[in-house]
């Protein structure tokens, strides 16, 4: 099960790097941190999983969306 979830994490990371729309990248990053929290949970580290769930899924998504709202949504490099 761990290898399968790691494959999903890699797929989400590649997509969030390659997507031209920054909001879609932020949504993929939120899913990635969720899967990372599940991985920490499977490795029997529930305290690390709590921190990853709080910071990765909640706060970082809010901060990224706030930053996108203040700037541009499209990635100009692509």
């Amino acid at each position: 099960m761990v290898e399968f979830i790691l494959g999903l994490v890699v797929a989400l990371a590649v997509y969030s790097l390659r997507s031209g729309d920054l909001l879609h990248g932020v949504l993929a990053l939120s899913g990635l941190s969720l899967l990372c929290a599940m991985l920490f949970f499977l490795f029997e580290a529930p305290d690390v999983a709590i921190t990853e769930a709080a910071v990765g899924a909640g706060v970082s998504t809010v901060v990224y969306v706030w930053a996108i709202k203040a700037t541009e949504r499209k990635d100009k490099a692509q």
Partner: protein
Amino acid sequence: MLDATQWFIVACAALALVKLVFGSGAAERLIALNVLSALALAFLVIKGVDEGRAIYLDVALVYDIFGFLGLLAVARFLRDKPMDDDKE
């Protein structure tokens, strides 16, 4: 039985993740992320019951609260800025 349930939930999470990557528009991806977080909640609770330790349920609780905050932020963003992602 619990092990088979965990595998089933992970397979459902993989399907929701396909929708998260290849969906059309931000709202559809947001719904996919919502489904993914609900599946993760079920997975964490079942794993906690399987292991028999109460601290594992705290992870599910904290993720449910903070994941909702993230979804709320994206939903407010979609309200403030009109949908321009369908015409790519």
